[in-house]
Each structure stands twice: as structure tokens, then as C-alpha cells.
């Protein structure tokens, strides 16, 4: 497979997952903002922006972090590379470039998302509920994902796509949790009622609310949630699940190509570390610190994937 093709596939997955993350962040933000805020703060939206490292460009363009502006920025704004509109357009453009590496079903899903998006952009904003936008985004992401799983040849292209998904999703879960961390930190102690409400909101936004209760039962506690979203291999968005998926696909590539490299080594090391961790150890390190470190580590693996397979420099 051409290196450039592998690169495009990797990024189709990352963009689609990122579109979904932006939608989920919007959903978390709007749900949190519906909670009674005794302190009168509206910092929840700021936190959302902080989690994507986009606070500065946002403030320069829109000023105040109110829902409508955030919606514009995170869903529609083409100047924001992580907005749903930017991501879906990019994913589709990458797909267009590598049409030959996709089945018509996968292309159809990508292209339909893009065509729908243009329809949405022509619709007056007053007719667009936030929930409709986020539902739509998640549905499109699911369609693309489903088409890939149902129709794509299990060759190297499939592995590069899934590698993109795994690394992006791990990054996204870590960032989503970090939002929660920010919301909590300045003003309340762990374990308060509001705290748990907000954690539940996050689970809802991840579509994991029921799954959590099936898996754990009883009271929602910070330790349970940390375990669920970080260390539980049954949770589809848990960091450990994502790292294990990345490992799996890197392993398949190594087998396919008959050689293993730095990306494999680093992913295996990260997996081994997660296998040894417990919620207590994570809180000891500090949740925010741990998440920051995780985000850097997955970025490191992505960098090595690029160097090894996607840059085409391997001779």
C-alpha cells in the first residue's frame, strides 16, 4: 500500500472520531450547563474549550463563551480544525483521495455525511437544536464505522484505519475526562452530590451511562468511574481498551510486514503500564497529571506510526 494512502486512511478514522468527540463535548457541555449552578459560574463552557486547547482562538473570534457561540465554533466553524464541519469535510476529502482503498459502502457513508452537512449548513440555525446536531454527528460516525467493519478487506488499510480510531478515541476519552477534572477542581471536594451528577452527565454524553450501572451497580463514585473509563477493558471507550486496540492493529501490521518497530514497542509498554494501574494509584499521581501524560504518550505512538509507515521514508 502507498504510504500516502495509509496516511489518508489513518486520518479518515481520526477525523471521524474527532467529529464525534466534538459532538460529545458539546453534549457534555450542554448537559452540565443544565445543572443548577449554585455558584453562578458559567465556566463549564470554558472548560470544554480548554480540553481541546482552543480557548484562545475561540476568544479572539467570539469573545464570550456562551452556548450559541460554542455551538458555532465546535460544530460549524471551518476555522476550527476540530469542528464537526471541518472534521467531516476533511474525512471525506481524505476518502476522496483514497477512493481506491475504500469500498463503495465506506465512501458512500463518508460522502453522505458530507452532503448532509452541506444541507445542515443551509438550514437556519433557529431550526437546529443542539441535540439534533450531536445525534446526527454520532449517527454519521457510526455509519462510517459500520461500513468499515462490515465491508472492508482485513488488509493493511483496515489496520491503519483502526489504528487511527484507537489512538484518537483514547485521546478523546482522556480529554473528555479532563473536562470533568477542570469543572471540579477549583471549588468543590471529591464526592459531593454535584460532583456525582456531573460524572453521570459525562457517562450519558459518552453513551455509557447504562453500561456503567450494569458493570458496577450501586453508587456512582469517582473511583468506579475512573476505573471504568481508564482501566476496564469491557468499556469500549476506556483508555485501556483503546491502547489494546492500537496494540492489536500494530501487531497485525508487524505480522503482515514481517517486522516490528518503535511504535509496537511503545504501545506494548503503555499497555503493560495500564495493566498494573489501579484507580488509587491514578488519584495518587493526580488525575489531571495522569491524563496529560496519557495524551502525550498516545501522541508519541501516533508520531512513530507516522515515521514508520506513513511518511514513506522507510527504505
Amino acid at each position, binding site marked *: 500500500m502507498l504510504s500516502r*494512502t495509509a496516511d489518508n486512511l489513518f486520518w479518515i478514522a481520526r477525523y471521524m472520531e474527532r467529529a464525534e468527540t466534538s459532538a460529545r463535548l458539546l453534549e457534555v457541555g450542554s448537559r452540565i450547563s443544565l445543572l443548577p449552578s449554585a455558584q453562578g459560574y458559567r465556566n463549564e463552557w470554558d472548560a470544554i474549550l480548554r480540553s481541546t486547547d482552543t480557548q484562545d482562538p475561540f476568544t479572539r473570534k467570539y469573545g464570550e463563551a456562551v452556548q450559541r457561540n460554542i455551538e458555532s465554533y465546535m460544530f460549524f466553524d471551518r476555522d476550527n480544525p476540530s469542528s464537526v464541519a471541518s472534521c467531516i469535510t476533511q474525512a471525506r476529502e481524505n476518502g476522496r483521495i483514497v*477512493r481506491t482503498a475504500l469500498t463503495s459502502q465506506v465512501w458512500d457513508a463518508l460522502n*453522505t455525511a458530507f*452532503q448532509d452537512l452541506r444541507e445542515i449548513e443551509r438550514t437556519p440555525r433557529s431550526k437546529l437544536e443542539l441535540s439534533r446536531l450531536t445525534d446526527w454527528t454520532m449517527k454519521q460516525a457510526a455509519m462510517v464505522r459500520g461500513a468499515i467493519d462490515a465491508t472492508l478487506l482485513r488488509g*493493511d488499510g483496515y489496520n491503519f484505519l483502526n489504528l487511527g480510531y484507537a489512538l484518537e478515541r483514547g485521546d478523546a476519552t482522556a480529554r473528555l475526562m479532563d473536562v470533568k477534572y477542570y469543572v471540579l477542581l477549583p471549588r468543590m471536594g471529591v464526592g459531593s452530590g454535584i460532583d456525582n451528577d456531573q460524572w453521570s452527565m459525562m457517562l450519558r454524553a459518552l453513551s455509557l451511562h447504562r453500561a456503567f450501572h450494569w458493570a458496577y451497580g450501586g453508587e456512582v463514585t469517582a473511583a468506579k468511574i475512573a476505573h471504568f473509563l481508564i482501566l476496564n477493558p469491557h468499556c469500549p471507550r476506556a483508555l485501556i481498551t483503546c491502547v489494546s486496540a492500537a496494540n492489536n492493529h500494530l501487531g497485525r501490521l508487524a505480522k503482515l510486514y514481517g517486522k516490528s518497530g518503535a511504535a509496537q514497542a511503545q504501545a506494548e509498554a503503555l499497555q503493560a503500564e495500564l495493566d498494573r494501574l489501579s484507580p488509587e494509584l491514578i488519584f495518587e499521581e493526580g488525575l489531571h497529571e495522569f491524563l496529560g501524560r496519557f495524551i502525550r504518550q498516545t501522541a508519541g505512538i501516533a508520531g512513530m506510526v507516522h515515521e514508520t509507515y506513513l511518511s514513506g*521514508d522507510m527504505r
Partner: protein
Amino acid sequence: MTQSFNEMYLDDTVRAPYARLEAWMRAMPADLRIQKQAEAEALFRRIGITFAVYGEGGDPDRLIPFDMFPRVFTHNEWARLERGIKQRARALNAFLVDVYGRGEIIRAGRIPANLVYQNAAYEKAVAGFVPSKGVYSHIVGIDIVRTGPTEFFVLEDNCRTPSGVSYMLESREMMMRMFPDLFRENRIEPVDRYHELLRRTLASVAPAKCDHEPTVVILTPGHFNSAYYEHSFLADLMGVELVEGQDLFVEGEFVYMRTTQGPKRVDVIYRRIDDAFIAPLCFRPDSMLGVPGLMDVYRSGGVSICSAPGAGVADDKAVYTFVPEMVRFYLGEEPILNNVPTWQCGKSDDLKYVLDQLPELVVKEVHGSGGYGMLVGPKSTKDQIEMFRAKIVKDPGNYIAQPTLALSATPTFVAEGVAPRHVDLRPYCLVGERIELVPGGLTRVALTEGSLVVNSSQGGGVKDTWVLAE
């Protein structure tokens, strides 16, 4: 201008090849037609067949308009066209081998030397080099217009990278999907062998140094190119990689592509580079296509390039006039397909005639394409004609003129129902070890009433083209 030939009606009777279609048309209710048209458009958009026009801005995903009314040739009409097209493709290739070799046709005084050797498309860097199997132009697109029951003329030849074949294939897919009954009632020759023939043609011209199953790639300028869809479509059908210049590199005496498993040797490059990209090639052959060293590998027989560098000199509009002469000179045959009479504004007698008759003529730039920079005299205002006259006078050598042909018209769906619209035809002749032509081609239709400009860049549409089985 005389009355143009209507391919469906002759003196108020329906011509035989269109008989069933006429009944189909009459039986189709307006709402079904509108529904089908919308369905076709949605399908085209979903598949992603779009066409971007350079410099026009607007919708980058503009659809090329698709007309559902097929254009039909009988078996016998096609048989003659096929002989004529293949004959022409052979002559053009013989000409190219000759002018990069001994130049016999010039020595024989049949074509002026300066027209060839001074031509901007003449590639000095390949003089003396004979490409694999002696083929320069592997895909020859010959634009043909019809003016009567048996009158066909060649409007121009495209020896470099004629585009549009994806529309031929997709239009057929669309019609078979939407109107399967039509294909049961009419016996229509299939065109779906095209990609297999193309792959075989490209593989057949692998260079001498290739001692294995040749690796073929399509080289595209990239996804911003207006024909990108076609490039990826063909790569997909043939199961070959679609590469950009950055994916290729030269090492030693071969060309390689960068893959996730390291370098892989490339034997045949089907390059789809527009004229705009080809221009620098004449001056800096080694930087051509952005792959340093490619020309050295090419000249030493390490890789084949299709169409071969230098092929453009055969489809120049000034050289066009001499194609019938090439047929006689190289093949010893009389041309089956005629040229449109052409005046060279560079010749003083011709120029005088052209300037006198300007309102009646079509004038084109010698190196222009895509329907840009042309004058259709009878369809232009006095001011437009005068403006063009000034341009011709300023640089006569840059223009040729032809009579305004009464292009045939075929029934076409328009807002009010069905009406005749002018059409042309571009078949795609494949030249490798063998010479092949699928029965069909791209019919382009000028959708504006009375318009003679069928180019997709000028608002033309496409139709499915049928050749009836015997």
C-alpha cells in the same frame, strides 16, 4: 447555417435505431421523468462523480449534467466509425514514431518541417527514442461530429490524456440501473470491458527491462484536479495504485513508489497530467511530473510512460490538418473519416478568407482546449466578432478556422419535455500490442437550445451512447 441532422427523425419518420426509444419517450409520464432525473442526480452525487471547473469558483462539487435520453448508433454505422477511428489512431502513432525518428513524412514534403519541429509540443528530449512497441499515444480520444445520415467528421484528436471515459462507463451504469427494461428491449453492445482492455493495453507496453508481471500505476496531479474522480475510478477498476509525483522516486535505473513496506518498482506509468502541467515539460524535461530523474529512466528503458512524452505534437490543431495525409502516407489507405475543412490563419490566403467570412466561421486557438478562447461566428454578436477579429489580426498563427458545422441533434430531456440538442462523440481508442475500441464513447450534449459548444466546462452534459448489436 443549414438545418442540422436530427438523429431520431428523418422527414417526420422515426429512424429505425430510435424506434423503441421513441415509444419509450412517449410512454413516459412527466412526473416519472422528473423523479428519475432527480434519482440520477442523487446517485451521481453520492458516487461522487463531480466536475470542477478551473477558475470558475462556486461549487467545487458541481455535477456534470446527465441526460437520460440515449444516443444510438446502428451496428453498421459503428462498424464504419470503428474502422475510421482505428485507422486514424494507427496513423497518428506512426506519425509520432516517424517525427521523433527519421522524419520521412517531412522529407517527403507532405508536412512542413517547421510545423513539427518548431511546435511547442515537439519534445526534443525524446528525439531518437522509440517507446515500447512503438506506441506514443496509448489512449486516443477522437472527437467526431455528425452532419448527416452518413456524414461524419473528425473535429480534433486527443493524443495525450483524453478524459471523460468514466462518464461513458458511469452513464451506462446509471441507465442500466434506472431503465433495465430498455436494455432488454434493445440489443445494446456492452462497454464494460473498457477497464480490462485498458489494463491489458498498458501492461502490453511494459519496458524491455521488465521481466515480471508489470506493475502499472496511474499518475494524477492530485485530488484538486478536475478529473481526479476519473483517475481514481480507473485505478479502482483496474486494481492499480493511484500515485502522485511525491509517491515516486528514482533510484538507479528504475522508478519506485513509496509504500508502507518500502519501495516497490513501477514499470508502466499511465500519467493523467493536464496541458497546464505538461507545459514545463518542454523546457525542463528532467523536472517533469515532479519526479527527478524520471526522464533518464524512461530513455534507458526502465519505465514506460503513457502517453509517451512528446505525443502532444500529433494532436496540435495545426498538425490536425495533415492527419488525412498521414493516413495516406503511412498506411497507404484513403481516410475513412474526414477532417473538417480548416483554414490556417497563419497563411495569408487563408487569413484573408477567414477575416472576410468571420461571422460564418468557428475560430479556435491552435493550442486551446476545453472550448475556451473560441469564436462561434453565427452565435456571436457583432462586437464579439470584432473583438475576435482584432485578436486574430494580432497573432494570426495562433488561430485556425472551420466552417460552422451543422452538428447533428438528438432528442434530449429539457424542462418542457423532449427537444433536439446538438451532440458530438468522443470514442476512446486503445493502442498497445493490439488496437482496441469498445463499442461506444462519450456523447456530449450542448444543453442550451441552439448551442454548438458541448464542452463540460461550458455547461455541456453527457448521454449514454448505444451501439446496437447486429
